[in-house]
């Protein structure tokens, strides 16, 4: 097992990109990442592509090969593999790329994520996203994805001190950060009233508690640490890579409000890096819904169960706080092109650790974490990066 570094990153602007196709989006992100790394195409040994549901969104499977082809790499016949775990597809793509480099099988590997969601209508995309949960025993009876997280929120708010206003603070904070991120889907700050007056989607979650439907792609280039300086003056080390699973259906979990897969992946990541929560300077967590960020902060060990709402309201997780959470704007404000999200999280942390995050820079950030969830917590990927 060799040490691995991120040597280049690229990310398209996120949003409703009607003019861009699936392959256009990837080419844009991939080109940026290679340019950032100063890597020539022919040096790439393999690619991993995180994508949830191109089969449903654009009727196209086999997107690993598609993307290697449109990246101009077909004649090199590089290995290109699609990895899928719903909303955690990007995180798993990064992990597989990490394993490929760490093992010595490959030197230069691209980890990418893409989702083109706006080629179908809202009803169809809600239905495609429900494929992240248990189609036979959740989707069949009318459970939507926001509905499942809403049931987590109901359970959580019944057992722990979390007010509706504190939950809204998560969205307010993430929009504040998103307004400082040039690639974010939403560039407007919002207030608690914006959230509380938005329409109910699944009680108690309102429209502004939910991440949007987004098109986007992101890519990063990995290399063995010992070769990273050939390409960049600012390599970012991968200190830990961890993955965990849990029951596909929310109703089968040990505890509705604790994502045990987050707990497991978090512990494994800290153990691998030899670090503890106090060592983390910033974290990108999977805030597909506001309640998800609350659970993530706790389940990763940054505070005790039931405390995250208060800490959020106190500004601890804000840009200037002790533990900035979702400086990118998170899934909520930066947008959530499902398969791309896990890679975008890595891009954000790398930008922060390089000191290139502009108006949302966390001063002196040296260690960052990413947390990417599939479904309601059936898959979780956690990575720790450091300089």
């Amino acid at each position, binding site marked *: 097992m060799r040490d691995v570094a991120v040597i280049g990153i690229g990310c398209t602007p996120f949003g409703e990109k009607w003019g861009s196709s699936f392959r256009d989006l990837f080419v844009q992100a991939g080109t940026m990442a290679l340019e950032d790394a100063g890597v020539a195409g022919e040096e790439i040994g393999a690619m991993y592509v995180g994508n949830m549901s191109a089969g449903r969104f654009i009727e196209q499977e086999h997107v690993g090969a598609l993307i290697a082809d449109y990246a101009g790499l077909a004649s090199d016949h590089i290995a290109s593999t699609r990895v899928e775990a719903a909303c955690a597809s990007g995180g798993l793509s990064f992990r597989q790329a990490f394993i490929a480099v760490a093992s010595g099988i490959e030197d230069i590997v691209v980890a990418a994520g893409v989702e083109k969601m706006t080629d179908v209508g809202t*009803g*169809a995309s*809600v*239905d495609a996203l*429900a494929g992240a949960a*248990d189609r*036979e*025993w*959740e*989707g*069949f*009876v*009318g*459970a*939507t994805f*926001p*509905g499942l997280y*809403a*049931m*987590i*929120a*109901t*359970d959580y708010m*019944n057992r722990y001190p979390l007010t509706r206003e504190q939950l809204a603070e998560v969205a307010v904070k993430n929009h504040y950060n998103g307004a400082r991120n040039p690639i974010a889907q939403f560039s407007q700050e919002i207030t608690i009233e914006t959230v509380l007056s938005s*329409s*109910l*989607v*699944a*009680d*108690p*979650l309102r429209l502004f508690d939910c991440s949007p439907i987004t098109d986007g792609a992101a890519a990063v280039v990995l290399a063995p640490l010992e070769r990273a300086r050939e390409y960049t003056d600012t390599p970012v080390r991968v200190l830990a890579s961890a993955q965990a699973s849990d029951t596909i*259906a*929310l*109703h*089968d979990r040990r505890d*509705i409000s604790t994502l045990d897969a987050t707990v497991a992946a978090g512990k494994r990541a800290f153990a691998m890096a030899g670090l503890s929560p106090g060592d983390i300077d910033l974290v990108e967590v999977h805030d597909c819904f506001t309640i998800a960020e609350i659970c993530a902060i706790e389940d990763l060990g940054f505070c005790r169960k039931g405390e995250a709402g208060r800490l959020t309201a106190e500004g601890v997780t804000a840009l200037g706080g002790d533990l900035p959470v979702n400086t990118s704007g998170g899934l909520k404000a930066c947008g959530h092109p499902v398969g791309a999200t896990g890679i975008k999280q890595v891009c954000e942390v790398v930008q922060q650790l390089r000191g290139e995050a502009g108006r949302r820079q966390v001063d002196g950030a040296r260690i960052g974490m990413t947390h990417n969830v599939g479904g309601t917590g059936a898959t979780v990927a956690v990575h720790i990066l450091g300089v």
Partner: protein
Amino acid sequence: MSVARFWRKIPQRYNLTGTRCATCGRYFFPPRYLCPDCRRAGKIGEHRFSGMGKVVTYTVIRTASEQFEQMTPYVLAIVELDEGPRLTAQLVCSPDEVRIGMRVRPVFRRISADGESGVIHYGTKFAPENP
């Protein structure tokens, strides 16, 4: 939309037929044919649940997927059956009525209608035990 996929589960969805591991005594609904505790040593048999249980958590769905659009708003809950297993189901009650811990009983209802094929899916919903 597939037909076999739904036929296959009719006994389970109509009659709440799940499974039970005779080795450790654990009940499964939705049914499992491999006991997570006993694994290959587990002896799995069928079990028909009474369907009596209580609400663990719930929500009110206001924005649904296409098949359920005309039913909104509807109450969706995780119900814990008295034998232990939990399942996701719609509740036949008003959004104001539902409470965590509320006792419920099973009722046989139309779950959804598939617009394209015209197939109507039936299954079990739950109603307050004492309305």
